[in-house]
């Protein structure tokens, strides 16, 4: 088996193995470390001597052994420290039989809910999810976020300590918290996608690996939670956005705005899958923000040209989105839709409502959007100064370049 296929297999098995081991031992933190070690061992051994007959059983056995060793040494340490050995359970007999495992289908899902626990900051939840659910190594995650490996290892370890300190048990969330917990999961998956798609800093505009990983994890979540409308909604949003990736930059690495993209480069397979997902789920339950954003992306993707875009429908969707999930970014996008339907001056009036919003003070997007609408209104001088202001505010080099170029075009 090639290295690539071993890696894919390992990453698919990661949350299942972790789920089984964590449930058995009841210690998510230690189980996660043990599974990570087992995965590293497997990556080496399987490549040279082949994949064992039951790869999942192999991983569970090796992880359980490591965990048992670890717990024994912890026990011994504690025994020395408190001389109270009698109350400590004996772990020696606890390695689960591999066939005992398949019985608990929710284990992978529990791992996902744990990794996106609301006590975590977004950055920690993202890192832990990529390792525990995505099966990436600490080194791979560190590389994707351009931080040193030791920093990433510490971030993950602290995240697990924080979950432990919160008293969370390795069980599925109960009915009363389930909706909130699912919202955290979807938010984390969405952030991973966004990080890959827009790369919050740095030279590369798109980090494809994170985008692909976010889609893979959301597919996994969808397979486990087919009834939750927002899960396919998020998956559709990712697919319908990612479909435009090839058209989003030109040969010089320069950003190309939606209105100027070569639509022939859009990935029709992804668009078809995204639209099918939406069609299946829209109207089947209460509508959520991811479904609406996916619907907006679908309207763009279905338009054969910019001029044929159904802006009235996009505006109606943004109005709905603003009602159920208000925020300055939604207002900003609605302003653009208003401009396309009712003219740039009407859009600028909507943008004006954001001037006093503290959340927009450090964002270059308000100035960039105002520049765009002023340009549509024929105010080249005003547009130019807005683009220049926005270019100075963003720390993303591709965006700096794009905005400077837009400004220069108007002089």
């Amino acid at each position, binding site marked *: 088996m090639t290295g690539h296929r071993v890696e894919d297999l390992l990453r698919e098995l990661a949350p299942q193995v972790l789920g089984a081991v964590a449930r058995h031992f009841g210690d998510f933190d230690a189980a996660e470390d043990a599974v990570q070690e087992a995965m590293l061992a497997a990556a080496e051994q399987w490549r040279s001597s082949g994949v064992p007959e039951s790869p999942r059983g192999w991983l569970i056995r090796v992880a359980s052994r490591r965990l048992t060793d670890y717990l024994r040494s912890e026990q011994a340490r504690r025994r020395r420290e408190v001389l109270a050995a009698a109350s400590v359970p004996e772990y020696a007999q606890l390695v689960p039989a591999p066939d005992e495992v398949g019985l608990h289908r929710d284990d992978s899902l529990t791992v996902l809910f744990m990794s996106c626990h609301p006590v975590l900051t977004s950055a920690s939840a993202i890192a832990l999810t990529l390792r525990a659910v995505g099966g990436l190594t600490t080194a791979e995650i560190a590389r994707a976020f351009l931080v040193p490996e030791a920093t990433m290892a510490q971030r993950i370890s602290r995240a697990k300590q924080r979950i432990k300190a919160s008293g969370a048990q390795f069980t599925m969330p109960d009915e009363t918290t389930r909706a909130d917990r699912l919202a955290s999961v979807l938010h984390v998956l969405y952030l991973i996608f966004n990080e890959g798609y827009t790369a919050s800093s*740095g*030279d590369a505009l798109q980090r494809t690996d994170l985008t692909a990983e976010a889609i893979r994890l959301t597919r996994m979540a969808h397979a486990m939670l087919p009834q939750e409308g927002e899960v396919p909604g998020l998956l559709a949003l990712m697919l319908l956005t990612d479909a435009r990736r090839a058209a989003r930059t030109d040969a010089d*690495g*320069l950003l190309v705005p939606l209105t100027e993209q070569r639509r022939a480069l859009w990935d029709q397979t992804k668009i078809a899958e995204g639209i099918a997902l939406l069609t299946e789920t829209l109207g089947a339950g209460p509508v959520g923000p991811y479904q609406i954003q996916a619907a907006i992306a679908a309207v763009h993707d279905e338009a054969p040209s910019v001029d044929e875009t159904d802006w009235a429908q996009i505006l109606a969707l943004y109005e709905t989105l603003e009602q159920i999930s208000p925020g300055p970014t939604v207002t900003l996008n609605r302003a653009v839709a208003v401009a396309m339907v009712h003219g740039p001056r009407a859009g600028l009036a909507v943008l004006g409502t954001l001037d006093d919003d503290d959340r927009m003070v450090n964002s270059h997007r308000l100035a960039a959007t105002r520049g765009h609408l002023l340009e549509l209104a024929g105010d080249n001088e005003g547009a130019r100064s807005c683009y220049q202001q926005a270019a100075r*505010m963003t*720390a993303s080099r591709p965006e700096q*370049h794009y905005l*400077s170029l837009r*400004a220069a075009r108007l002089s």
Partner: protein
Amino acid sequence: MKYMLMMVGSKQGWDEMADWSAEDIRAMIRFMHQFNAKLVESGELVDAQGLAGPEQAKIVQAQLDGSPVVTDGPFPETKEFLAGYWIVDVDSEERAIEIAGQASASPGRGGAPAQVPVEVRPIGEAPSVDT
């Protein structure tokens, strides 16, 4: 050996960029894109980042009692500032200097080299074990 190549922008140059033509900007972007791609290809690029403009800067300085004082930019007295940097892992200082020279020759207004100074400094050297 790792070196940090710091592109030192001037207030004047930064302001003048507002008057570059679209073609000048496009040429600069094309140059930077190819320049970075070549460094990736040669296996020498560790990291490259642009920074937000000096208007976004804040200066933080502790007082004698340890509490910080934060001053918001821009700072009119500052004539030069870090505009962006590369970290490269190369075989020799000569090579780092060669790369810095190419960066400094990136096209500016009218396509002539922008001649932005690039400061080259060794970084992250491990302490020598034997001494």
